[in-house]
């Protein structure tokens, strides 16, 4: 017997939706888009200068876009699919089942969109959301500064009032893909006299504005996913502020919850081959078919337990949010665990790869894809709030422990 509160008719409708969705995905998702992207160049980010890396990528993106399924749960009037929470869950489950990639990767979708839906004016929503949904504009996030990392609210980039405009001067750092972005959502200080959380505003502007420049930062992975971003008297209309002037911290925090949920998702990937089988490729198996490295096998098994448990928790977090029972700081918990788990995953992959995983420049190693990805994961527990900051948030906001 079942104990769902969903009335039978709703359950039947959802089942119909599931069958239709499965059939549509089966017919629409090219086989090439049913395996994980192997490099960042293989991911479609959209934007004014976007190029598709392959024909299947273009076809998949356009089909999904036309259904509004780049953002399945956004309202239709803003370019979304208008799906209910239950339908969205079904769509995600069906996509995961066939290993279908997201058709569009976008900070607009993951971070700015939810903030605009909550805090944006109608004009701002109409202006920006449809372009995010259609992949026309690529966004970047101007949060961290050289002296404002974990202590984000101490940011110093100034926005001075001048008639109908703000004039922005300062520097951001760790701006993901700023050199490819068309627009930026940015935290600026609009009242230097106020307490640090109180004088901040959340503002949007075009990266082609006069006075904006970017400089990529070379990382230990050999890649440059982040930039330094400089603003030299950039003029931005005041109408581009999201939410209330000087209350940008509310918007920033809300957006951070979505950012953390996004980063924590890096720890869970149900599709693809089990880690133990990947390890067996290089290490081999014994007569019983067990990985021929008992200690590593044990590490992988306990990783698999934790990964499956985290996936259940991510699913539950969504369900709790829908039921209105979620703690607002829970994304910090997920961010901490998901990123630490992803680092563990790559430590195992490096150990499993042995010597083969050490090559940095060769066709054979796809230009050192594995060691570069391993090094990239080390940023997971730093970006978007460090593990230590996340644990502090859990301790104070969820457990209500005393002090600072």
């Amino acid at each position, binding site marked *: 017997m079942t104990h769902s*509160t969903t009335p039978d008719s709703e359950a039947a409708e959802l089942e119909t939706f599931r069958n239709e969705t499965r059939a549509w995905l089966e017919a629409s998702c090219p086989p090439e888009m049913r395996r994980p992207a192997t490099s960042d160049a293989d991911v479609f980010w959209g934007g004014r200068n976007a190029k598709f890396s392959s024909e299947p990528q273009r076809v998949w993106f356009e089909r999904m876009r036309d259904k509004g399924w780049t953002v399945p749960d956004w309202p239709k009037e803003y370019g979304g699919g208008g799906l209910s929470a239950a339908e969205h869950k079904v769509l995600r489950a069906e996509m995961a089942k066939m290993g279908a990639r997201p058709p569009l990767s976008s900070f607009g979708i993951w971070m700015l969109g939810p903030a605009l839906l909550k805090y944006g004016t109608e004009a701002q929503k109409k202006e920006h959301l449809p372009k995010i949904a259609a992949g026309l504009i690529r966004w970047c996030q101007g949060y961290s500064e050289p002296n404002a990392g974990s202590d984000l609210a101490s940011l110093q980039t100034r926005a001075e009032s001048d008639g109908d405009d703000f004039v922005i001067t300062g520097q951001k750092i760790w701006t993901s893909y700023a050199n490819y972005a068309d627009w930026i959502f940015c935290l600026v200080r609009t009242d230097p006299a106020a307490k640090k959380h109180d004088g901040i505003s959340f503002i949007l502007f075009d990266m082609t504005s006069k006075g904006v420049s970017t400089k990529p930062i070379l990382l230990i992975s050999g890649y440059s996913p982040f930039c330094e971003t400089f603003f030299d008297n950039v003029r931005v209309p005041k109408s581009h502020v999201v939410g209330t002037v000087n209350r940008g911290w509310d918007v920033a925090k809300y957006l951070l919850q979505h950012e953390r949920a996004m980063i924590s998702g890096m720890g869970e990937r149900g599709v693809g081959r*089990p880690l133990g089988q990947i390890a067996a490729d290089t290490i081999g*198996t014994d007569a019983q078919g067990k990985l021929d490295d008992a200690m590593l096998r044990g590490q992988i098994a*306990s990783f698999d*337990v934790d990964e499956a448990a985290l996936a259940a928790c991510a699913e*539950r977090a969504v*369900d709790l949010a829908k039921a209105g029972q979620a703690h607002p700081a829970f994304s910090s*918990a997920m961010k901490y665990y998901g990123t630490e788990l992803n680092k563990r995953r790559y430590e195992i992959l490096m150990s499993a790869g042995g010597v083969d995983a050490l090559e940095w420049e060769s066709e054979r190693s796809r230009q050192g894809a594995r060691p570069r990805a391993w090094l990239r994961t080390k940023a997971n527990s730093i970006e978007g709030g460090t593990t230590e900051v996340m644990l502090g948030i*859990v301790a104070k906001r969820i457990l209500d422990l005393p*002090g600072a």
Partner: protein
Amino acid sequence: MALVLTEEQSMLRDSARGLISDKAPVSHLRHLRDSKDPTGFSKEFWQSFAEMGFAGLLVPEEFGGSGLGCVEAGVVMEEIGRTLMPSPFLATSVVAASALTRGGNAAQKSDYLPKISNGSLLASLAIDEGAKHRPLQTNLQAVRAGNGFKLSGAKALVVDGHVADLLIVAARSAGSAGEREGLTLFLVNPAAKGVAVERTIMVDAHNAARIEFNNVEVNADSVLGEVDQGAGLLDGVLDIGRGAVASEMVGLSEDVFGRTVEYLKQRKQFGKLIGEFQALQHRAAELYVDIEITRAAVMKAMQALDADVAKAASAVAVAKARAGTTATRAVQEGVQMHGGMGMTDQFDIGFFMKRARVCEELFGDANYHAEQLARARGY
């Protein structure tokens, strides 16, 4: 299905919590232990539990039960875990009731299930033989004799075995230890000739027995399920039991964690509440996250069991493995953060540590279940 409790399930939780925390707080266990109670649980309380429909929670309605599912059984187990209440619920209402419901013929069901539902019959699965849970290593011999069998061998950690009115005994009727083929489940009357029951007082002051079977005669009607083909039935029944114990460990972990966080907010050293120290804050936060993740994994497993027991094995392995490591961490941190007080018998925290250790061994520990998952995933 959403991974949150439905309204009905929340109501069930509230009523179980109200009843258990009122009638059987940790002091109830302490009293049973200190008085060396021969039964080891409260029979009166078990009767009122049965009257509220809990004893027959998993039993189909046609046999006087409530006809609910594993999610609901998990909800009750979690509440039991919060106060460490010794109760026949696990052995009788979850494991034995599942075995009879899933494997019993019409006569067996109508003989036993109504009595389980009304609280008048206690039953217990006798499975483990060695130091560790290894169901396929079952070596208690079932030799054909006349129209029935003779059973010889010994079982350990038979939960509630000292008071059970009915034993469900896993035996080897063919093949040799380690093989899936050749396992048979038998319904055995513990008063039968050749059965010797020794109550074992355990570290957690809960109830278990060692039982010897010396040429115990059983007739053909005593076979539960099919001769030699018991492994499949046993897998399902054990998985339901594992999910139930994992649920108990979630309740146990949450309660010990709640007590620990409260202590961090009260205890002062160096002129500060110890909860102000970042070293303790971060450890408490990590433990909180561990418990939340484990709770989700256990709920997932219970839903999987309700959907299809035969397909739930991996979800159950994840749940039991996680619940074991999480509960172990929770009780260790609980004692450590309570300092010297945590080491005293007067303080309840030690009861949680002891129960967690037993739950970890029951139906396979974290290593056992991680091993199962590795095999299922082909490495």
